């Protein structure tokens, strides 16, 4: 899915890399923070990881997904940071897939706390509320896309509608979801002590 942007970067267009950074910034910061356990340092390490990724992108051949490749760079950058800070990095030399598994397990353990269970429930409720707020055609289109991973063509066939309509419905659904999410966050912010 990132291939079109990666190729654009490889052809010398930095603007395409900006979109990749915007897309993955939150995931990479969260990943790095699991290593460095310092939100401020995580921002710096994540920045360094993206810069390294940009410099190395010239050699990226698409043998793995872009995110898997980026993930590996971020993990290595975080480990280098820990070594430079004279802190012990994880004993095993994790590759992206192993790290993903490990963090999922850690995440499951962490999520067992009441606080994290609450956050998880809130996220689920947010999703349900966001989907409930959509008209049936929009809800169906975005669900088929985001949850079932179907292509626009397949969705068009299933919904018996032109592909342009599918594209438009998915876009409108996203707009409404973002708007709802922002409203909810504003409410949480106001309610917070």
């Amino acid at each position: 899915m990132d291939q079109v942007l990666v190729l654009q970067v490889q052809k010398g267009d930095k603007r395409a890399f900006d979109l990749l950074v915007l897309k993955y910034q939150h995931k990479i910061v969260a990943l790095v923070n699991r290593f460095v356990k310092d939100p401020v340092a995580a921002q710096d390490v994540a920045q360094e990881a993206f810069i390294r990724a940009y410099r190395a992108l010239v050699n990226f051949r698409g043998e793995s997904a872009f995110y898997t490749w980026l993930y590996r760079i971020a993990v290595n950058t975080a480990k280098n940071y820990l070594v430079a800070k004279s802190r012990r990095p994880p004993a095993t030399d994790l590759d992206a897939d192993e790290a993903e598994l490990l963090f999922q397990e850690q995440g499951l353990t962490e999520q067992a706390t009441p606080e994290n269970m609450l956050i998880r429930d809130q996220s689920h409720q947010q999703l349900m509320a966001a989907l409930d707020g959509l008209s049936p055609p929009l809800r169906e289109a975005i669900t088929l896309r985001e949850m079932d991973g179907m292509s626009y063509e397949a969705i068009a066939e299933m919904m018996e509608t032109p592909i342009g309509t599918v594209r438009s419905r998915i876009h409108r659904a996203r707009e409404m979801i973002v708007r709802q999410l922002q409203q909810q966050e504003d409410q949480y912010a106001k309610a917070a002590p």
Partner: protein
Amino acid sequence: MQKQPPEEQLSALMDGELSAADLDQLLNEIEQRPALREQWSNHHRARHLLFEQGEPAPQSNQLADRVSATLAQQPTILAPGLPLREPSDATTLKPDIDEPAMDTPATVASARKIRPWIPMALAASLASVSFLLLQQQWQPSPYVVAGREAVAATEWVEVEGAWVERWINPLDRQERARSYLVRHDEQRTVARQRGSLVSTAPSLEGFAEPTAEVKRVVGWRLGWLPEGFREVETLRHQIPLSGGEVTHRILSNGDAVFSIFIEHSSQKGVDERQMDGKRQPVNLYSYFALGHRITVLGEVPMEMVKKVAHSVEAESG
């Protein structure tokens, strides 16, 4: 067919449903309208939180802004094997990686415009003539795109008696170009002061015959220079990657400054790029001749840099 609004194009790009041709247009739109960049970020944040069950993340693009600002100061990358070309028709992007990374020499030779001019001074020996015939093929890649910093470049290497063209690792080339730029910038202020005896704005018109002072430098000479320019200094440096000593000639008219680097080298091929100098963009042109790499850079038009570079001739006597 009705044009798809950029907001919808962004959404399609999220799903890998946007063509390469539309991507180029969309990137232009995003550059003009920062709200589109915000939209891209917000949609991914929502996807991360709601559909991927990711951790809550702040609504901030501070990190992306920092990365973008840092990269703006760095050379543009360019993948070897990817021909630089503008997106063609509105078709979905095919993986260019699978396309052949290099042309055969015969194809390249026929596809390229052969430079008609050959420096007369180098026609003295058969070896030189042979070399120059080959040199005609080492002209800039046709894949030059205006406004981009890096230019696809190749080198010719001999493999089992046949000359073949291959892509040069752009990171090496960038590193070398950066080294030249550092040396050039170091000398720039002094060079301008020394060159200020003559102050004529650089022009492509009216190239003057060089003075005797300018002509004679370590076995090489300049065929001509832009009017008003004079040599202000000749230095020797160690340049990273080249591993050897490089002669650095500095020329100025009191306003613009040229640097000419000449070094022993076995790396063939042409490099042509624009870089960010300390004060303004610096054009660089570099080519291989008679076992040497000749590199010219300066805050002047690329055409002028190339003319100076190709005026460098080996001294026969």
